[in-house]
């Protein structure tokens, strides 16, 4: 599972073909352009942060990539193939997984089941296997379970033990966010899209999760796009930062550049911040 080239970073990536590329991507809601001609490239093994003020279109970008909303113009290319017109489940099975800003677990399924069901697109056994209780079926069930447990163990002791069999709604907020990430990992993606993964966590938890995001890339080889408002986390994890405002990319680069970009400051603080 671990990709050997994972840790090579953006320097090497520049010469390679991007893993995901949006070309002049636009999304409109009625008259509102939530994304406007956005060009974005994500390379393998990279962690990219997407930041921007509220309503900038960050979540919409994720929604467009995962086909949850329809884009009005432009193209999305993943591993050289266009994702346009695919159903969300096909996007996921082609290797892009996501989490949701407003945590959306399968609340009444157990923690383990949440992770098991997310392996759906990577497993094959169908109704007949289950009915005849074939050996292949049993083997696959065991594998699904093992893989789920392995993924849950990635989060330390928080999601294993008795908690594994508890319904997801009994989890604390932070654990729900962790479980969402576990679920995304279970789809065995190449690229994970994390929508505000530390929102609502306390500083200790948030620091811990920041470490986990790094390990996700290093140990599991995922490329990661993070939407995040917490600048500490952004500085910590990102190889590259992309700033959106009103659906337009206003800056891109490493953290230091972006943080000092006057346009970015303006977008966050408003034009002529400080005026009465």
């Amino acid at each position: 599972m671990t990709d050997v080239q994972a840790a090579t970073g953006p320097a090497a990536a520049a010469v390679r073909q991007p893993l995901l590329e949006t070309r002049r991507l636009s999304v409109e809601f009625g008259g509102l352009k939530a994304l406007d001609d956005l060009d974005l490239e994500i390379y393998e093994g990279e962690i990219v942060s997407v930041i921007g003020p509220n309503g900038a279109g960050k979540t919409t970008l994720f929604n467009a990539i995962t086909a949850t909303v329809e884009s009005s113009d432009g193209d999305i290319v993943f591993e050289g193939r266009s994702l346009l017109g695919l159903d969300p489940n096909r996007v996921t099975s082609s290797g892009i997984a996501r989490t949701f800003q407003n945590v959306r677990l399968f609340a009444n399924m157990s923690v383990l089941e949440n992770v098991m069901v997310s392996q759906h697109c990577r497993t094959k056994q169908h109704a007949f296997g289950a009915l005849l209780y074939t050996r292949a079926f049993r083997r696959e069930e065991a594998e699904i379970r093992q893989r789920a447990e392995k993924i849950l163990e990635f989060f330390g002791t928080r999601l294993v033990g008795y908690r594994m069999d508890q319904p997801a709604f009994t989890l604390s907020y932070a654990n729900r966010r962790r479980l969402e990430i576990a679920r995304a990992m279970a789809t065995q993606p190449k690229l994970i899209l994390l929508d505000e993964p530390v929102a609502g966590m306390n500083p200790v938890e948030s620091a811990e999760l920041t470490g986990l995001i790094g390990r996700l890339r290093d140990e599991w080889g995922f490329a990661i796009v993070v939407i995040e408002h917490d600048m500490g986390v952004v500085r910590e994890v990102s190889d590259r930062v992309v700033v959106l405002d009103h659906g337009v990319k206003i800056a891109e680069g490493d953290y230091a550049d972006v943080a000092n970009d006057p346009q970015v400051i303006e977008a966050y603080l408003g034009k002529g911040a400080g005026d009465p």
Partner: protein
Amino acid sequence: MIGKALRRKAPRTGVDWFLTVMRVAALTVVAVGLLAFIAQEIDTNNPFARWANPDATGLTRAQFQGLIVSGVAQGAMYGLIALGYSMVYGVLGFINFAHGEVFMVGAMTGMITSTKLADAGMWESNFIGSLVLIVFVSVIVCALTAVIMERVAYRPLRGSPRLIPLITSIGVSFFLQNVSLVLLGPAAKAYPDVPDWVKSKHTFLEIEGAKILVIVVAAASMVCLWYVVERTKSGKAMRAVAEDAEIAALMGINVNRTIVKVFALGGAMAGMAGILWGILFRSVVHTTGFLPGIKAFSAAVVGGIGHLGGAMTGGLSIGVAESVGPLLILEPLGVSGVSQLRDAVAFAVLIGVLLLRPNGLFGERLPSEDRT
């Protein structure tokens, strides 16, 4: 640059292909049927018409007109009932399956009061007065029925998973239907005889008085409802609650009372439709509400649920389609006994519209939590 054309979702899965085939097939059947109809209207011995249906006879102008008019009259009633479905769906986001039974209650109330009036001799001596009276009684009874229904069965379920109130309303529908059965008996019950001017055809377009009456009254009720919803304070509250109940509550609108008003209004419209049904068909049974109820719901969906104008348009379309459709499309295709398939045609219209335009003709207006 990827063109707009590619972006429109092309069939991808087997299901999509199948649906495309079905759409095409449905449209083909309709088109061929229509063509055959036109062919046989031009000349009954037209080879194309003969090929489709060897016994084609065609329709005379008067027949055709008659069909359209009865379709419109019936559609007007569907429209009135549909308003109730549409308003409740718009506000609470669930299908009040029992609304058709409220309509039945209206027709039954009308039957009871009108027989009593006829016994007292008032029905013949002052028909219009009696009519106003039975409408009044029936509207009140139906509004009450709807309000009690909301209070007892639906209010405790606010905020539960969305299929729960639907299942409950199926139970309510069943219950009301059988209440009528056990209290009033299984036999079909007749409205008293109506004056000649209602029964006979009029010089104006050769339409029966009853149908004119139905169309006029339905239009008037529609206008009243439109006025209430668009121009009064309560109407404003209803629209606000439909838009977002939580925010409406924060704005100081009494959500519960507004919902009660919505049910009362919808019930009143159903009561009105019940009387019109009684005048037009002059017979009611406990099952009277079931099919018109479902068709009216279809009408609401066809028009785009949550839209008042849409409900009326949908009602008229379903009414006309089921009246004309069998003879216009199925008969020319050689289907025998088409009048038995009226109801099937009405459902087919619903399915067809949902296949071609899932949000109805005018698009939906849903409560905010259902939009995502």
